[in-house]
């Protein structure tokens, strides 16, 4: 059935999957053997095959979050062989393909592990803390209507491109899962940088950074000690420069705070 590589052979794999009935239950790794996995399959398609097998055996299928399967919605979130989103750099779980694995491999699959992300079931976690950080200030306060013509605010391409790079964060939380302190600095800094770089966002830059950082702390995310595992595991390549920018914005704001 293979699409492009007629030589690719199906694989047999051993999966160790975190099973946990709900947020109160204690979980454990269960072992499943799975056969005939085509290297052309995506990782989540392999999980689909596992789930169809389990269902037919009368075993509750493994719950995992996913939606777009295109690497953009940020919903998929598996910790594979000890790495957030698995072994391939710059790739979300849903874009990871089985050709990155070999016949006979054992693959360990766990949920994101971080205090502020409680496990809901199996591999699904509650990441609403990230939404609340955004609600604390990740916006420009304009109402609909009554705004200037789009081309009245020229923005140098280099600045626009930089803001864009920061804006590509998909809010998956891999940075938190990858960090031994469970820090959400990379995520928070991406929004802070995007809006601080753009002229439209400058007006509220001080209150924004203060409020977003305060919310981050309130949610129980850990402190940043500049290890950089976050950026190494970020599927869209959000850079550590954003954390430096957040720190500058924060210091600047604390000297001349407008939060009254």
């Amino acid at each position, binding site marked *: *059935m293979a699409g492009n590589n007629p030589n690719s052979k199906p694989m047999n794999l051993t999966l160790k999957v975190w099973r946990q009935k709900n947020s109160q239950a204690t979980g454990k790794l269960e072992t499943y053997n799975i056969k005939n996995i085509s290297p052309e399959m995506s990782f989540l398609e392999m999980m689909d095959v596992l789930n169809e097998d389990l269902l037919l055996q009368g075993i509750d299928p493994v719950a995992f979050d996913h939606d777009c399967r295109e690497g953009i919605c940020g919903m998929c979130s598996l910790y594979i062989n000890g790495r957030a989103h698995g072994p391939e750099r710059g790739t979300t779980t849903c874009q990871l393909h089985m050709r990155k694995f070999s016949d006979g491999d054992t693959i360990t699959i766990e949920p994101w592990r971080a205090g502020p992300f409680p496990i809901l079931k199996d591999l699904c976690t509650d990441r609403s803390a990230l939404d609340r950080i955004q609600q604390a200030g990740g916006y420009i306060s304009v109402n609909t209507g009554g705004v200037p013509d789009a081309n009245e605010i020229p923005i140098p391409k280099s600045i626009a491109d930089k803001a*864009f790079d920061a804006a590509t964060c998909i809010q998956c939380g891999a940075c938190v899962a990858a960090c031994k302190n469970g820090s959400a600095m990379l995520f928070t800094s991406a929004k802070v940088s995007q809006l601080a770089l*753009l002229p439209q966002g400058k007006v509220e830059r001080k209150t924004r950074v203060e409020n977003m950082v305060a919310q981050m702390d309130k949610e129980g995310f850990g402190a940043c000690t500049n290890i950089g595992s976050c950026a190494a595991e970020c599927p869209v390549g959000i850079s550590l420069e954003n954390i430096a920018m957040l720190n500058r914005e924060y210091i600047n704001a604390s000297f001349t705070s407008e939060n009254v």
Partner: protein
Amino acid sequence: MILDSKIPEGPLAEKWEKHKFNVKLVNPANKRKYDIIVVGTGLAGASAAATLAELGYNVKAFCYQDSPRRAHSIAAQGGINAAKNYQNDGDSVYRLFYDTIKGGDYRAREANVYRLAQVSVNIIDQCVAQGVPFAREYGGLLANRSFGGAQVSRTFYARGQTGQQLLLGAYSALNRQIAYGKVKMYPRTEMLDLVMVDGQARGIVTRHLVTGKIESHSAHAVILATGGYGNVFYLSTNAMGSNATAAWRAYKKGALFANPCFTQIHPTCIPVSGGYQSKLTLMSESLRNDGRVWVPKAVGDNRAPQDIPEDERDYFLERKYPSFGNLVPRDVASRNAKLACDEGRGVGTTKLAVYLDFADVIKRDGLNTVVQKYGNLFDMYAKITGENPYEQPMRIYPAVHYTMGGLWVDYNLMTTIPGLYATGECNFSDHGANRLGASALMQGLADGYFVIPYTIGDYLAQNPTARIETSHPAFKEAEAAVQTEVNRLLNVNGTRTVDDFHKALGLLMWDYCGMARNAEGLQYAKQEIRKLRDEFWRDVKILGVNEELNVTLEKAGRVADFLELGELMVDDALNRNESCGGHFREEYQTPENEALRDDENYTYVAAWQYTGTNQQPVLHKEELKFENVKLTQRSYK
């Protein structure tokens, strides 16, 4: 039932202005007395929820994902149209209107489309003010690109992720209102029924996807912004969870469903590679700006693409449509790819693919330029296929992408149920029989930011009612019905999985109600869908209970609805004895295989009324009047 589209009187260009002046207003102090439910937080829903909250209404917003920012709009790649004419290349509101009507093969309402073109310019201003990082030129001004079905550059874009950036803009506006307490957000919550009191939409019943809790929410009006139903085909470019449930349950409560068979099959998607395939990935239409579509001239030519010399290649779109070339509308491009494959000239191991080749543009503009423009799409292609598109042409094939059909709405975006509105892809309103690229994002945001905030006020001002408690019998009845349906699913205890049924339905739909349809095939499909539906209710296997995170149960409810909707799509396709846009009936084509419309008999919107399970629905017709454009055979030659 008489379908009243409520199109305002007067010249086309003045209708919306006049209407805005004539609508009743709710005074600012009174707005806080009204509650509005918005189901869906994609572009259409998030923009409406934020704007209505800014105006002072109390909003409750719902989505099935864990965060509103993950709605399927996030996945849109290519861009958003607007008649800004920043490029000074002859664009105007009228031209965008005209292109959209023509692109839709003359099956959309003039007044709606004109309004869409008018407000398109405000959308770009709004998004920039929110900090949406659109692509810019070196001088700091906004950049544009071209899309299919247009000869001007009016598409604004944010690399290959315009949907994400626009949605993050709307999401940020929504977040601001959540922080103010004006919007209460319910993620991981699925609407399973509409509640009506005295003939008006007054609330919804939901199931919480983690706890299984079934709950009622009351309001003065309900907006459905729940997206399209392309997943009826199982394989599509939609997100895995995209579904028809909210719209379908509204249909069963009396809202008419319009043009259900109008489906868009997008020409440039990564082809199916195996039976395990769970979804199809779009390669943005923007690639057709520079990519050239071709197949070998000879049937059965199995050489690698680089070994096929230039004069043995057939660049069939450039050959057949010299003036639009690779940028013909989607329905035309898809059909021609299918034709080439049907002739035995398809490529790749499955022979169900054509090439999209970038060798020329790489030679012309350099590798760097191509990386800049399309880098993330090329990377995505490489990740999925394991092939390098910088070195060999992409293989692409059409896939289900968008549904032009949806809940019937009038000019105010209200369905046939008073107080129930439908916006974005969920309604049928603006794209006729074929949507032009970059126009869905435009429509979703137009509806949410600039249309519904006016029109909903008109309804509320004229129907001032008190709040209703969810202890009202109508809510209790609806909750009980939802609970019964859930139990019914859980009690089947059969042997076949939900996905298995879904795949079987998808195949039927693709084979008989997909890119090409005919009466015989459609009749066959109708019988088969009925059989499949019966079997589903006899033999589906769902484990577990309601009171937990139960993914199979969630899917089962959605597939049960698709099994009904599929039949309605077939009915609609059977009824429409003509070809238009994405609806191609093989019996009705020109000698050159183009869609052959029958304007005499089918210049209408087909709006279907539910009459009961396994009963024939009743057809209502809204005649379309064209006062400004002349109906012609679409030509892209």
